[in-house]
């Protein structure tokens, strides 16, 4: 179990750096969604199923939705 934990955390860090580096905002948001889903997985490992469900529904679902709407109303590329 521990090794899965380590892999997930490393994935999180890589995803966070990828979000920071990506110029395309839409891709950044999608990467952030996968980050949230992996975070939900990590919380299942940490025995917090309620938090995992909430993160999957709110963090990954609703937040992404809002971001995508706002990007569609503004601009997709970072300068």
């Amino acid at each position, binding site marked *: 179990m521990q090794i899965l934990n380590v892999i997930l955390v490393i994935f999180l*860090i890589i995803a966070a750096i990828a979000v920071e580096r990506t110029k395309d905002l839409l891709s950044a948001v999608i990467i952030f969604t996968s980050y949230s889903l992996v975070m939900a997985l990590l919380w299942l490992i940490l025995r917090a199923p309620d938090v995992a469900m909430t993160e999957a529904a709110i*963090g990954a679902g609703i937040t992404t939705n809002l971001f995508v709407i*706002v990007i569609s109303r503004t601009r997709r590329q*970072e*300068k």
Partner: protein
Amino acid sequence: MPIEIDFFLNNINYIGAMVLFVIGLYTVLTHPNLIKKVIGINIMETSVFLFFVSIGFISGANAPIVEQGQAAETVVNPLPSAMILTGIVVAIGVTAFALSLIVKIHEAYGTIELDEIMQIRSAEKND
């Protein structure tokens, strides 16, 4: 302070939370794009949540859902999870509000890059 691989493996969640915190802060501070800043804020928030939930974890314990009469089995500390539930909802509230502000700023200035907005503002001041 000898850094061993064991130490690294044992505390991976704390280390991950700290690293994510700093990456999020870096994103917020250096990127002029407002949406990127909001994503950075979200990364910071999730990192703190990760830290919080990790505090309550006990290796080998079960999720805090008990059966009657079996309360004696080891379960993880439920308090951090309950707090983080609150925290996630707070985070979505802040994010939604920040995004609506971004929409308004885009309407007003035509851009969401902070440095371009600053240029527009200084040009307006000189007029």
